């Protein structure tokens, strides 16, 4: 990979709970190249959204604190950056699209004003310049009649249009990184397809890198080039999307792909039962367990899994996995 744009290394985020201090993100590292689309995948409660907030310096504190590691954006460590510097970066160089477009737009301002606010703040445009730029952005996200829509309030728009406005706002300052946290979960499939097309087109035009947070492997396949699979705050597998989809190595990744009834092209009368991943994501109080977090749900569990945390094993140049089953097999193969 060429020079990385964003580099997260050994990031640990701890939350103080009634049960003590727990790591919600546990020694997480990954790189993002310019113009690349990376996807963070996992069930809810695995730390995907927390990672996004940590990058933006938005971890609610208290109870949260970044206790170790760094987030480096073009040579600058964002963990050490001052609040003022972070405000400059947010929305300007790194911006975010949230899951629920209704609650993340301000209901008492028109959508035009909300897009213009970012532009005035970061690019020092005047009110009029910002407004005409906002109209251009609304046009760019393919909302019809942009010069009328600019004066609409969020409640006057449909869910799909609101999410387009969120994207327009996020891309207004031409950020280098767009973080999209489940951007289409609240939307219908047909609208989801429109939003994905739009994001890909805009990415081609602006060259922004995208971090897509999702739990849907279909969306990953559609949008991303690389994928990081997270479980209980840890990275358990990462690699190129086609490798992970065709040859998932970690039992959790395999389960995550197999347990979803994927839409088939040709249906037959044969309908096997779905493969289950038994159990659920552990509660926060169990995080930071010194062993494999997935052990209680894993069908390949062995003694080491309970005793020591599995290390990342580099399988190929691009694919790595943290699993005792695989590291033992590898050692046997090499010996």
């Amino acid at each position, binding site marked *: 990979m060429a020079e990385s744009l964003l580099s997260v290394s050994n990031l640990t985020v701890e939350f103080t709970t009634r049960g003590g201090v727990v790591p919600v993100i546990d020694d997480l590292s990954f790189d993002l190249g310019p113009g690349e689309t990376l996807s963070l995948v996992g069930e809810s409660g695995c730390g995907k959204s927390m990672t996004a907030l940590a990058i933006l310096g938005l971890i609610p504190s208290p109870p949260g604190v970044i206790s170790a590691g760094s987030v480096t954006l073009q040579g600058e460590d964002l963990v050490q950056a001052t609040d003022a510097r972070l405000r400059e970066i947010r929305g300007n160089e790194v911006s975010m699209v949230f899951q629920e477009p209704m609650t993340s737009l301000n209901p008492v301002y028109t959508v035009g004003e909300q897009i213009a606010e970012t532009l005035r703040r970061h690019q020092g445009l005047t009110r009029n310049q910002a407004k005409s730029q906002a109209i251009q952005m609304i046009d760019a996200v393919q909302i019809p009649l942009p010069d009328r829509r600019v004066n609409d309030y969020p409640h006057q728009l449909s869910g799909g249009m609101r999410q387009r406005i969120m994207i327009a706002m996020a891309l207004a300052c031409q950020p280098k990184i767009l973080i999209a946290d489940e951007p289409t979960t609240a939307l219908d*499939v047909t609208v989801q397809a429109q939003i994905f097309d739009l994001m890909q087109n805009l990415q081609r035009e602006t060259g922004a890198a995208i971090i897509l947070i999702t739990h849907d492997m*279909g969306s*990953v396949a559609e949008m991303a080039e690389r994928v990081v699979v997270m479980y209980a705050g840890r990275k358990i597998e990462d690699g190129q999307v086609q490798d992970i989809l065709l040859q998932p190595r970690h039992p959790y990744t395999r389960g995550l792909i197999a347990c*979803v*009834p994927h*839409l088939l092209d040709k249906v037959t009368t044969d309908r096997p039962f779905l493969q289950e991943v038994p159990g659920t994501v552990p509660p926060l109080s169990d995080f930071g367990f010194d062993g494999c977090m997935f052990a209680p749900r894993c069908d390949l569990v062995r003694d080491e899994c309970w005793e020591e945390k599995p290390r990342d094993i580099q399988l190929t140049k691009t694919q790595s996995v943290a699993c005792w089953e695989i590291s033992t097999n590898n050692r046997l193969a090499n010996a």
Partner: protein
Amino acid sequence: MPDTAPMLELRDVEVRFSLKRSGLFGAIPQLRAVDGVSLTVQKGQTMAIVGESGSGKTTLALAIARLVPVAAGKIQMGDVDLLGLQGESLRTHRQHMQFIFQDPYSSLNPRLRAQDIVREPLDRLSIGSLESRNKRVQELFEQVGLRQDQLRLFPHQFSGGQRQRIGIARAIASSPSLVICDEPVSALDVGVQAQILNLLRTLQKDLNLTYMFISHDLGVVQHMCDSIAVMYMGKIVEQSDRESLFNNPQHPYTRALLSAVPSADPNRRNRGRRITISGDPPNPIDLPPGCRFASRCPLVEEHCKTVEPILKSRDPIHRVACHLV
């Protein structure tokens, strides 16, 4: 296929909601949430209803359960005319049709213990003695995969998947023949979703249940259903059995819907035949005169905008409402 007697028959069912009058002397506008829906559900099978939000799928389910007033049409369940039931007869008939709700968080009373939630339908319908009801609750817990030591816990002590199991136990408590599942897995995590879908299928086989399955997730629907109806703006636009609809979709809306689903299967993806439909559905209060899908249809022709297509049979099982098919 165990039995092919129709369990449920709907004829031209209409549900209308009255909206706020425009001005002092204006007419009261009517929203036709369900507009002339006819379908038949066979005994022991799963009929799925799919469509975007606002297409009327949940309203249709509520209408069948007699939870919203039906303006016109006929709903026949076995030899009972559901719309003719009133008061006490309706109450006792509810024993035979139960509902599984979408959100396992808000559909369980937070102040009742799990066993009381599951026993509630039996209590309301006065089925058996208290002792036999309690025994039945224990059986139900076993059946849906909950432990006996969880009987006395409160809903907040369960995870989302376990809560949905409680909802399912409650629904099958009165031994219904029809269970309406309204998006039973869309609030759950993918790992848990598979557990619940497998449970629903096992229960269907064991108890010979008939499901009315409502979902917007086409992968889930394809996995679960025996027959399927696609709804758009309150109307059925296409209806068929599972194989015929998924292997040979006819209506442009159905095709667009199927092609919009992102796929993890590279073979399916590389075919590159995604049909994108632009824009949003029309305003349901002020529907266009012709086909309701005309404003978004990639194949639209002039007469689509003026003449409304009717649901025509292509063959004995496959029905489509489109001028171009």
